[in-house]
């Protein structure tokens, strides 16, 4: 049996980097899979900000662009 990699890996662009995602089906899975531990972060999917309450119900698809941001030291 030949493996169909497309069913296993999902190619995404996360914070500008090409990434292969193993099992995530939605944004909530993705946060777990990437092990994001920042105390405050936010996400955008294809340039649309997604509220935290919708991570679990926002599916991710091949070639999606994901941004994950947080607060860093900065002034002006």
């Amino acid at each position, binding site marked *: 049996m030949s493996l169909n990699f497309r069913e296993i890996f999902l190619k995404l662009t*996360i*914070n*500008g*980097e090409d*990434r292969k995602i193993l099992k995530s089906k939605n944004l909530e899975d993705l946060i777990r899979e*990437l*092990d*994001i*531990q*920042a*105390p*405050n*972060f*936010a*996400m*955008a999917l294809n*340039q649309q*900000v*997604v*509220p*935290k309450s919708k991570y679990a119900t926002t599916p991710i698809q091949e070639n999606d662009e994901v*941004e*994950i*941001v*947080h*607060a*860093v*030291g*900065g*002034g*002006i």
Partner: protein
Amino acid sequence: MIMNTQKEFMKIGDKTFKSRLIVGTGKYKSFDETRQAIEISGAEMVTVAVRRIELDKNKDSILNHLDPKKYTFLPNTAGCYTLKEAVMTCELAREAGLGNIVKVEVIGDEKTLFPDNEATLEASKLLIKDGFHVLPYCTDDVVLCKKLEDIGCAAVMPLAAPIGSGLGIRNPYNIKLILEAVSIPVIIDAGVGTASDASRAMELGVSGILMNTAIAGAKDPLKMSLAMKMAVECGRMAYEAGRIPKKLYASASSPLDGLIEL
């Protein structure tokens, strides 16, 4: 009698601040130094930038070092060159739990970091409609500041000199004119180099000052932080006390009566 050293507080959006110093969190050597410098400054509002998380590096976060009960965060759009980037950065900041008071910066020129005022005005409009309290970084232009007030900005933040330049208050007359023209708080954003600059700005009657490099870049940031705290307080107090008018000729402060006559 205990003298009331401060008559009023700084009001931004729906919040009141005892400290008129707003500090940045960039350019420090460590999170520990950041935390200490901010604590010493007495600032109640601190600005933070919003950036991509570095994947695979579970790096420590600035927010692990700043108590959200103690500080109001002022996410900024530093580094944004377009309206779209600035608006999205603010939306992300709010979603990240950083609140809805934002410092809007749309940079128009890489070398001077002067703002793109048109884009700043447009971005501010969109963000105000979306429920943000907007503090725009802008040039010292009276007409622009009036427009920013008209669209509902919570304050205006004119620069006193280019960001990080430390050149001091180069435009006291323009700042004075802005203070006369608008009734929202005027906060000096950028240009302060040392304590006397901070006092001088406060003596003009501005509501507050935002600074970062002047403290973080000092040889001893913690000492400078205290100097800035005191300078802002002294400048404000002098403004409230009302300085004497400037005169061309001398005016003796000793009585002329009772002089010995030889």
